[in-house]
């Protein structure tokens, strides 16, 4: 079952004094299945947030359609089992953490008993236990992000839409958010999140869609998109001559001197093997050989190049 579906979704803004038309989303087709973590990847200004705002009823599409839980997004009931964390941490900061969750739980119509039970649980889950009676304006950015995440989960939704949930967080904060997303999938929930931090997306997503300039340029399961074959290798050598270093430097994509070690990155596996043979033959030592798989970053860069060419 598709939890999210869009068909030929378009959005055109009018901006500036002359009301210039800007097409932010240009015919997006998406299908997000139940129980998956779906990454919506793209650079800033690609159309990720606009698409998410259409899905959450904050913007109206110019053309095409969007459905959540098979209900058109114009129907408020499409948001009944949806939790949304917008980009940035813009909340009612005069409220305490507990009041903030109380307010959003009340908007969802949760009975008082359930609110009393769920709010402390959620605060603990996102790491805000002990800070619940402090006003949100006194929270750090990471704490605000956690409060926002708790707000998105307060209704125990089947679908959680997170717009750049890891943006601006330190590595520990990012790991905590990743853990929450993974635990949501374990509970059978669907997570649709946008990010421009590709490593995070690659680590946790089942499916991804890459959006560039308002168009989806690639969509599918991570393994299908990235393939299983290797895309070059990273080699570290020791005890090689200066002449050999310069020879390999010319062939490699990247060469770095790290004290007594020399690191080379090759795009083609054949080049890496040749370098390996040359180093062995010259009496140098091989410290490591790390095959490189194609990454989402490669995919995005390829997409950008194609977009620029076309």
């Amino acid at each position, binding site marked *: 079952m598709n939890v999210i579906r869009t068909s030929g979704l378009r959005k055109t803004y009018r901006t500036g004094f002359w009301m210039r038309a800007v097409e932010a989303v240009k015919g997006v087709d998406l299908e997000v299945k139940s129980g998956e973590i779906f990454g919506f990847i793209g650079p800033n200004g690609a159309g990720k947030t606009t698409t998410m705002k259409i899905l959450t009823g904050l913007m109206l599409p110019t053309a095409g359609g969007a459905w959540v839980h098979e209900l058109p997004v114009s129907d408020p009931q499409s948001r009944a089992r949806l939790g949304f964390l917008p980009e940035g941490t813009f909340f009612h900061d005069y409220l305490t953490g507990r009041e903030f969750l109380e307010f959003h739980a009340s908007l*969802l119509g949760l009975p008082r008993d359930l609110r009393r039970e769920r709010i402390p649980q959620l605060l603990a889950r996102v790491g805000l236990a002990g800070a619940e009676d402090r006003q949100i304006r006194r929270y750090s950015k990471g704490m605000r992000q956690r409060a926002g995440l708790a707000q998105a989960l307060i209704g125990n939704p089947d679908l959680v*839409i997170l717009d750049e949930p890891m943006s601006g967080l330190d590595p520990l904060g990012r790991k905590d958010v990743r853990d929450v997303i993974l635990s949501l999938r374990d509970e059978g929930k669907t997570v649709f999140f946008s990010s421009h931090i590709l490593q995070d997306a690659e680590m946790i997503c089942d499916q991804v869609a890459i959006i560039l300039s308002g168009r989806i340029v690639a969509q599918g399961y991570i393994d299908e998109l990235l393939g299983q074959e290797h895309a070059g290798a990273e080699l570290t050598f020791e005890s090689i001559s200066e002449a050999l270093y310069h020879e390999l430097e010319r062939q490699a994509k990247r060469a770095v001197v790290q004290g007594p070690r020399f690191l080379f990155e090759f795009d083609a596996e054949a080049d890496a093997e040749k370098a390996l043979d040359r180093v062995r033959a010259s009496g140098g030592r091989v410290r490591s050989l790390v095959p490189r798989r194609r990454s989402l970053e490669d995919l995005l860069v390829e997409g950008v190049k194609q977009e620029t060419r076309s």
Partner: protein
Amino acid sequence: MSSLNHIWVLAMNTYREAVRDKLLYNLLLFAGLMIASSILLAQIQLGHDERLYRDVGLSAIAFFGVLIAIFVGINLVHREISSKTIYTMLSKPVQRWEFLVGKYVGLLTLLAVEVAIMSACFIAVLFAKGSEFYSGLLWSILLIYFELALVTAVAIFFSSFTTPYLAGMFTVALWIIGHLLGDLRAFGSRSDIPGLKALMEALYWTLPNLDRLDIKADASAGNPIELARIGAAALYAWLYSFVLMAGAMLLFQRRDFR
């Protein structure tokens, strides 16, 4: 969940937000000082000092009430949009019209509390000076409240599609014109400029006629006030506010939150 519950939750949050705003307390303090200052003013003026307490008191309630209605009203919707706090609310199964009505009801609640506090100050001054608080004054305060409800609806209407700065200017302009419509109509009827009479008539019948809600002079002078006049004025304010809020809802429904 019913619309009524959505509106109630949003209204209470609006009320809480306003109550935690320092501006409100400053305005209330000034209103209190203004009402209390009528005691000093009465000592300067010769005669009619009881009427002066009533004039200053009622005017202070109306003026500071309008200040609160405009300042809070124009920012009510805009602040939620500019600070992006609206995102987490409207991404729930809350309809946009429920959001607007919730904000409106929240501000009406706040204004009711404010008017009650200012009225308490006013009554305290009257009692301190041995002056009577009679029903005419109560009706006048009630119609001040209806005027505030109408001015709030004007502020929300403008802020549903424009910036707070423009919404503030338009609302203040309408408030001033709304109190001068009778004079403008009279001026138009006596003018020889072609079309001016028709224009003034059109303005008189379309813009909010706040003079209908202003019985301060009669109440202060102790003149009898017919209940039918109060009922008609209250109905007029209620209907006009309803139309403005309906317009705001229509405009808000088509708005994108970028």
